[in-house]
């Protein structure tokens, strides 16, 4: 019989392809940055400062997206900045997902005191403004990749914990869990083998979303000058510089902003698409 499923699948497929395609492009560009980027991202050339992008009057060939106030090539800086963004997205995203999901699964399945402790911890955590918390952590830990990863785990594990806990509680009510008990599974096996796979699509969707959020957090930290280091190119750092010279050289802000915008959008849409694809009822 015909129903709405065909169209849902088609839409999910399109979402998945567009967002996945963009992420693949960013990944390839940053992975092979050494070969692809036209200039060194750090080389300053004060005689070629604030050159506009190629379509505007006064553009120099070779500087596709123009240069910033210190004469550094914007395109090259975006490509190298992508390295930082993607590294942070993958490491921090995965680590946050693991920490938050494990705690969420335990709280949602075992309930009792474990749930009481974890839930209270989540409540306390939710009383902090995340961005301020992250900035504070970086100030204490010092700048650097690992500080950023730790800061993201610390501020965002609750996102996974809350959602996974609720979903686990939902799934635990289902009779397939009772039937696994009747079959003779031990409790831990039921959690990992029966409930786990049913919670996984939720985790995957959140993970993808979290990677986008990690990119943003990194950008925000760079924006307040608290990221990897002051001279490495980062999208957030470029935005901060572009914000200052917005009236003189708008492209220094606009170009990284568009890339950041698309990347964050792609991460979240990729997660949604994966979730739709994984959902057995829609397949």
């Amino acid at each position: 019989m015909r129903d709405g499923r065909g169209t849902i699948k088609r839409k999910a497929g399109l979402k998945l392809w567009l967002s996945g395609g963009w992420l693949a492009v960013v990944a390839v560009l940053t992975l092979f940055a050494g070969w692809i980027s036209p200039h060194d991202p750090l080389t300053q050339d004060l005689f070629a400062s604030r050159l506009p992008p190629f379509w505007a009057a006064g553009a120099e060939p070779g500087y596709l997206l123009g240069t910033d106030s210190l004469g550094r090539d914007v395109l090259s800086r975006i490509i190298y900045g992508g390295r930082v963004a993607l590294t942070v997205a993958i490491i921090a995203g995965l680590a946050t997902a693991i920490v938050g999901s494990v705690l969420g699964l335990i709280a949602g399945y075992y309930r009792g005191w474990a749930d009481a402790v974890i839930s209270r911890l989540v409540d306390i955590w939710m009383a902090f403004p995340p961005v301020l918390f992250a900035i504070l952590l970086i100030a204490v830990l010092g700048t650097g990749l690992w500080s950023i990863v730790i800061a993201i785990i610390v501020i965002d594990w609750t996102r996974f914990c809350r959602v996974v806990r609720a979903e686990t509680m939902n799934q635990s009510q289902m009779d397939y869990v009772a039937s696994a008990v009747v079959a003779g599974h031990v409790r831990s096996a039921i959690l990992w083998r029966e409930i786990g796979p049913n919670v996984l699509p939720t985790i995957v969707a959140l993970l993808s979303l979290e990677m986008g959020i990690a990119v943003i957090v990194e950008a925000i930290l760079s924006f307040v000058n608290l990221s990897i280091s002051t001279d490495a190119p980062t999208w957030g750092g470029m935005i901060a510089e572009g914000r200052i010279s917005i009236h003189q050289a708008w492209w220094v802000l606009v170009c990284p902003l568009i890339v950041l915008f698309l990347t964050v959008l792609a991460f979240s849409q990729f997660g949604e698409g994966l979730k739709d694809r994984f959902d057995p009822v829609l397949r």
Partner: protein
Amino acid sequence: MRLLQTLLMRLAMMAITLFGAAVIVFVVIRVVPGNPIAMMLPPGASDEDIARLTAHYGLDKSIPEQFFVWLGGVLHGDFGTSISLRQPVMPLVLGRLPATLELSIFALVLAVIIGGAMALTGTRFRGGRTEAVIDVANGAGLSIPDFLWALVLILTLGVLYPVFHISGRISPSLDLPFTTQFYVFESILRLRFDLWWDLLKHMFMPALALAIPLAAIIGQLLKQSLKETMHLDYVVLARTKGYGENHVILFDALRNAVLPTLTLIGVQFTFLIGGTVIIERLFSYEGLGNMAIDAVINRDLPLIQGIVLVFALLFTVVNLVVDLTYALLNPRLRHA
């Protein structure tokens, strides 16, 4: 009776949460490697300076001892003295709080209006092109955080078509007659609509940036629960009674559909307030968040602690208010 008990329990929970938050801030600042005094002082300070300052801030005592000394002060309203501004923390924080509150509340109002309108329109014209457009808009609003919306707004409405101001809270050239820090509120009371308009022109973009993600959440969730409610028998029954679609949505479906959205708004509103930290920075808006970032950059420990705790208090109060509103709207809880 039930309501009073709920209130008492929530207050107890609030106290626990705040205590936990205080402990965590304290621990993060002091236990994590790195000497807070070294962080406070410029590089190259002598050992003697460090020792003197350590004793001055009581940092030579054990950590639990330090904590209770600090907590004792906090309970008396003494948050210590700001290192960078050399003033008591409490009045500094209270002086900035109104600006952040006005911004957050304005953003919340925007979010409710935009989100509510999207949900109602989407429900009224469900299944059509209008709903598809609203879904796409909601999807974009949900995926992109306030930080990016703020930048997009600065570029479009601040630079390309400069309709609104992109920095500050109010134009510096204006004479301010205000006695409180609640400028928007006071400007209305004093009937100074010129000032009010100037304030709004400064507040609009940061507030909109903060509001967009929340509006998308409200739009999506409220629409979803409205649509679910529209299939329930009592709504179907209302239609067979001869009521039109608009009446059915507004008078039969909305009230019950709002409840799940309301619980979510609580948490999301705290996220919105949390977002003010970076948004205020972006728009150079003189609120608490902007001050917080300066405090971190200046390594001003007492000020950081004070600000974080005020945020925590604000968040727990917001959640409390939402819970109580929920209880008041739900007849099951009201009469049980």
